[in-house]
């Protein structure tokens, strides 16, 4: 069966065309592939993904109650099914195959493997039970296999989230949303049941700086304001001087700030059982343990003042402290890329692969796109534009002769053979489609969009 797959994949024997390898099967990888395939009718593109399943953060990061955002999967599916494109899942680049081996087999390699680590707060008590990174919490409710044993304890009244970006707002919304809103989505059954039994009633979303620096976008804030059976609990003192600043703000910032001001003024239904609030000018300095010293029971926050103006506003300590009792602490201060292979340059300070417009520094034939290129910010559309940029640069290099296309490269044929000798079981796109069908089938019996498989071994079993 393996032989027939290989023959089908390379049946076109367009060995004169450029062969490009993409590392990472998320939005960056797929959008880069899409653009390459469109720009060069002779290009063959292979996508390698560590998990058996494709789509990266579109599957594991986008909130379950945002299914429209996941419509991009249709475009990615089209790309994967293109006859000059092949998806290879369950391949761990850096471990199962090296970057050098890929560079030998392909004319160009594009790194699109995103940011799987997270920035730590760097404060005492951060490792106490009850403290989670938003990345892990989101991974838990979205069925990322490595987070399936997270078991967050939701039996406490107050949760504190550090960070005020869209990920922080997603976590707050999932914690406070009525179960009715979630039960037909693709949230995992474990998470749904845990949330149904949750005692969390109050969520504070804490930021270092002020209301004018909040990083979330208006859509997510509006969803909090409109959340049923919740009220907004803000501190008017945090908003001093903001009303006066409104008129000079650019439209997006102005509308966002106006919405916050409205939430401060109106608050919401006093009878509401649950509440959420934004807290500004506060940085975490210590996670406080409970009397038994065994788990988190509170967080100590330092109060800040702002210095500077415009884009370069910074938070500076005042010396004042504030303690907040809470049993669930979620740190949402950013994802972080990690190095994939010693052969690839990596900037540990910025946690990206150093590059110039997507061309990896000092390494001909190596490119990057998405978060590993720019840093872990932005929405899917941002990554889309960025990936189109990298693809154009790659095409430009092909056309300018910077990549030697006269050399024949074996592409997937060589890599597949190598992986076989190493006992690696690749998952092709048609096999993902079987996993997909199984997830939808299980979802249907539970009245949900899908029930994700949580276990890599089970995915591989279904892919047979």
């Amino acid at each position, binding site marked *: 069966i393996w032989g027939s797959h290989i023959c089908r994949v390379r049946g076109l024997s367009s060995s004169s065309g450029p062969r490009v390898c993409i590392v990472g099967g998320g939005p960056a990888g797929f959008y880069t592939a899409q653009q390459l395939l469109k720009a060069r009718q002779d290009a063959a593109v292979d996508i390698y993904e560590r998990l058996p399943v494709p789509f990266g953060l579109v599957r594991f990061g986008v909130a379950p109650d945002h299914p429209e955002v996941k419509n991009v999967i249709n475009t990615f599916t089209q790309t994967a099914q293109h006859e000059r494109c092949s998806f290879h899942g369950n391949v761990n680049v850096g471990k199962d195959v090296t970057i050098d081996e890929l560079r030998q087999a392909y004319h160009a390699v594009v790194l699109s493997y995103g940011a799987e680590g997270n920035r730590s707060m760097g404060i005492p008590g951060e490792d106490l039970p009850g403290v989670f990174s938003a990345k892990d919490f989101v991974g838990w409710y979205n069925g990322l296999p490595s987070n399936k044993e997270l078991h967050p304890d939701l039996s406490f009244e107050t949760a504190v989230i550090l960070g005020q970006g869209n990920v922080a707002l997603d976590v707050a919304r999932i914690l406070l949303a009525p179960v009715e809103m979630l039960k037909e989505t693709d949230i995992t059954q474990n998470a749904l049941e845990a949330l149904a039994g949750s005692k969390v009633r109050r969520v504070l979303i804490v930021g270092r700086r002020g209301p004018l620096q909040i990083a979330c976008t208006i859509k997510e804030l509006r969803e909090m304001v409109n959340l049923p059976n919740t009220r907004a609990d803000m501190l008017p003192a945090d908003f001093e001087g903001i009303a006066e600043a409104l008129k000079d703000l650019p439209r997006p910032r102005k509308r966002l700030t106006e919405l916050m001001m409205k939430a401060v003024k109106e608050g919401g239904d006093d009878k509401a059982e649950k509440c959420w609030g934004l807290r500004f000018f506060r940085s975490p300095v210590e996670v406080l343990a409970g009397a038994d010293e065994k788990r988190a029971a509170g967080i100590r926050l330092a109060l800040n003042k702002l210095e500077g103006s415009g884009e370069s506003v910074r938070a500076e300590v005042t010396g004042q402290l504030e303690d907040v009792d809470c049993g669930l602490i979620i740190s949402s201060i950013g994802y972080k890329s990690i190095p994939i292979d010693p052969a690839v340059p990596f900037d540990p300070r910025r946690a990206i692969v150093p590059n110039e417009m997507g061309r990896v520094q000092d390494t001909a034939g190596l490119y990057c796109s998405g978060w590993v290129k720019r840093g872990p910010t932005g929405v899917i559309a941002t990554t889309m534009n960025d990936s189109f940029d990298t693809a154009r640069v790659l095409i430009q290099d092909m056309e300018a002769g910077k990549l030697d296309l006269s050399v024949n490269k074996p592409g997937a044929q060589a890599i597949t053979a190598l992986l076989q000798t190493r006992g690696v079981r690749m998952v092709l796109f048609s096999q993902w489609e079987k996993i997909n*069908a199984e997830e939808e089938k299980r979802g249907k019996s539970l009245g949900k969009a899908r029930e994700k498989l949580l276990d890599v071994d089970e995915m591989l079993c279904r892919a047979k």
Partner: protein
Amino acid sequence: MAASAAVRSAVSLTQRVVRVSPDCSICPLYRLNACTGPTDGFTAPNRRLRTSIGVCQSEDSSSPEEDKRQHLAPREKVNVVFIDRSGQRIPVEARVGDNALHLAHKHGIELEGACEASLACSTCHVYVSSEHYEKLPEPEEREDDMLDMAPMLQENSRLSCQIVLTPELDGMELTLPKVTRNFYVDGHVPKPH
């Protein structure tokens, strides 16, 4: 053989995932008699859009849903000009009731439409010619929220997936914003028309 046929028939993707058949009539290769056959359906984006008003067929400018809305009257022509990211003008003939994003896809214009017209992204962002901008209905709050995230937002910005053609939009020009840093492959800067 039988096994793989069984696998193919067993695959059922969500109803949102639709296999696309290429629309040859809009493909430059076909028009130039340079098409080598249906092996490569990828020269132009061509997808069925799931919009809030129902799924639109991409091969046809009219669909049963759209005809019903027009009460079966023959639909008036509306001329629209797309101006792509290199400044090239692409005039298209459309009809009252057509969706601007759908129209763009039909004519191979590079508007991505990532969320498939569900107001969950800003990739179909266009600038509308000012005299026609006034004639569009006010954007709903959800569109404004998405527009806020579009790079290079201007006073005359709209999401093209929300523009439905009416007779007074005849002559409307929709310009694609230059969203990427290295748009021009060879460094060329287009001269204004």
